[in-house]
């Protein structure tokens, strides 16, 4: 695997500090820092699709936007093709990492036709000679499965699925090698989602793209991604091959997430609410004596406890120190930020 990385993220953090009003500042009130992304290590290999899942507010979109360069970094580094990405990116780096946005309704200029949108990009970045712009436009339409006449239309004349195709064409116009897709199918109707998922799969194979697919929808991520990373409160808590991660999750949060996904209940396949509730019971865990002990010892030792401890059914004393990603002894491709990972060896011989 080594040497095959196209993109590496090292200790990336992005914090947001809300503004404090003048009066509050006079009284010495400190702003509450929102640690949206709080130390993420991530590797994207050439030609793979990496799924990034988590619940709302876990920082997955902030991470995606930081990688593209829409947000600056509070800490950490991004390497593209082995080279460090500086705060001011080189032209090649800017072109190489492109994004597909969630909402195809607001991410396109409503007053420009598709042709104008695409031509502007191609001319500005001087990607093709001026006389070849039209040809390239038609190529892009063909690539995303839209008819040529779509070039003359404005975004409002398209359905949601078609608009998302235009959004993808816009990203592909710059000939990227890495595509960051932030919830690209969430705004679409169920019957249209499959079209876009299949399109992204095809494009990824045809253009040898490396894709980071951000989604809260576990089923979609399972369908599209080769590897999956699970995020919780600004950190990656587990990462591994999609199949193994879904079939045998290691981190308690991944377990909860996967068991909560409703499945088509053909025969007694019902997600047991009591089991899920017990596992996630924020309130129940509040009474856990072990939790209080951990928080106490973390405070004494000046460490921060595991960020999942307050919801976790399996807290132990060691959770007082937040674990970093620990490689699963059974599978080197997998790691989880949980002290229980190391014990895994004994469980499956």
């Amino acid at each position, binding site marked *: 695997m080594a040497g095959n990385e196209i993109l590496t993220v090292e200790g990336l953090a992005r914090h947001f500090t809300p503004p404090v009003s003048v009066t509050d500042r006079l009284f010495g009130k400190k702003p509450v820092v929102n640690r949206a992304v709080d130390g993420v290590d991530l590797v994207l290999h050439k030609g793979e699709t990496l799924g990034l899942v988590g619940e709302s507010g876990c920082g997955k979109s902030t991470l995606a936007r930081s990688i593209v360069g829409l947000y600056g970094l509070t800490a950490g580094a991004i390497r593209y093709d082995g080279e460090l990405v500086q705060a001011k990116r080189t032209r090649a780096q800017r072109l190489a990492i492109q994004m597909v946005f969630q909402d195809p309704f607001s991410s396109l200029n409503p007053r420009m036709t598709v042709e104008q949108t695409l031509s502007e990009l191609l001319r500005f970045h001087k990607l093709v000679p001026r006389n070849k712009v039209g040809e390239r436009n038609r190529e892009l339409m063909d690539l995303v499965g839209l008819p040529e006449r779509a070039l003359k239309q404005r975004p409002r004349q398209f359905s949601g699925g078609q608009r998302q195709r235009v959004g993808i064409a816009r990203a592909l116009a710059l000939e990227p090698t890495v595509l960051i897709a932030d919830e690209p199918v969430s705004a679409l109707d169920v019957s249209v989602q499959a079209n876009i998922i299949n399109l992204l799969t095809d494009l990824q194979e045809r253009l040898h793209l490396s894709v980071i697919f951000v989604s809260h929808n576990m089923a979609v991520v399972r369908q599209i991604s080769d590897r999956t990373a699970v995020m919780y409160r600004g950190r990656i808590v587990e990462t591994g091959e999609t199949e193994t991660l879904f079939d045998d999750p290691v981190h308690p949060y991944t377990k909860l997430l996967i068991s909560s996904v409703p*499945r088509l209940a053909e025969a007694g396949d019902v997600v047991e*609410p009591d089991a899920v509730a017990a596992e996630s019971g924020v309130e129940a865990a509040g009474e856990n004596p072990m939790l209080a002990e951990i928080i106490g010892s973390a405070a004494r030792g000046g460490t921060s406890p595991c960020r999942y401890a307050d919801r976790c059914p399996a807290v132990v004393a060691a959770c007082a120190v937040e674990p970093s990603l620990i490689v699963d002894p059974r599978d080197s491709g997998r790691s989880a930020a949980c002290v229980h990972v190391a014990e895994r060896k004994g469980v499956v011989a």
Partner: protein
Amino acid sequence: MTAPLLEVRDLHVDIPMPHGRLHAVRGVSLSVGVAESVGLVGESGSGKSLTLRALLGLLPRPARIVSGSVLIDGEDVTGLPAKQLHRRLTDTMGMVFQDALTALNPVMRVGDQIAEAPLRKLGKSRSEAKAVAIDLMTEVGIPDPERRYQLYPHELSGGMRQRICIAIALSTKPRLILADEPTTALDVTIQAQVLGVLRRLKQDENVGLLLVSHDLAVVSQTCSRLYVMYAGKVVESGTLLDLITAPKHPYTFSLLRSVPDPGHRVARLLTIHGQPPDLTDAIVGCSFAARCPFAEERCRQEEPVLEPVGSAPGTVIRKSACLRVDTAERWTAMVSEETVGQQ
């Protein structure tokens, strides 16, 4: 056979538009038995939410009911004077909305919101109403109800807010809960908990459920019988098991194969081409014909009727609105041939 708790017959809902009218619900008939949980599935614009809202007289302006009748316990209540009708409907049904934050009054303590109906409608005293509210909060799984009674909606999490909404819906002692996408705005872990609450209500309290959702998986977790809606009509109905194991309408069939399953990965998802028809126009023939992989010439001309299809006597009647329903067993083979042909 006893009359169903709720029956809707041939409901039509229109939305006047600047250019003509949008015929959003085109003759929907459905029924919910006592303590039965029924799902209404369809994508946006299929008319599922409007159907539900029309039932309680909660249609957003300018939508209006054109025709149709609502029967409660077999009695047609459509002709009743407005006040009596409202009373009859709200006595029978309670509603849970998608967005719990906007459904709640932001400047009123959540407990008081639950106690409001027992206080005003059921004529309880203040202390009795409060006790009822706290019981209801316990019932929907809110820990520490006495403390949470005093909180305002913004102080609660999304899942807790939705539970408050369910408690409010239950506060009039309804026999049926109407739920419009109750978990769509929630995270998966919270969704699982709320679905659990809804399921428990049916088991323990004998409260019926009419659940509207775009998500077949969510519906399958709570309901035993389904109606599938497309372009303002019910295109298929039957038991959950029948519908998902052997769909008899191409729309249900395609939907099942186009939605990824969290349990396993398929080589390729089936795609449904095109988009739903424009409901301001009159639809000639089958409304799904343009997107249907099995449509033939007559599908574009004849309008299919929702008819019973091969169910054994004594079982729940299975209905489908498809002219080619006789070929249903071969659909899987036909689709795989087609995808092979494309490659």
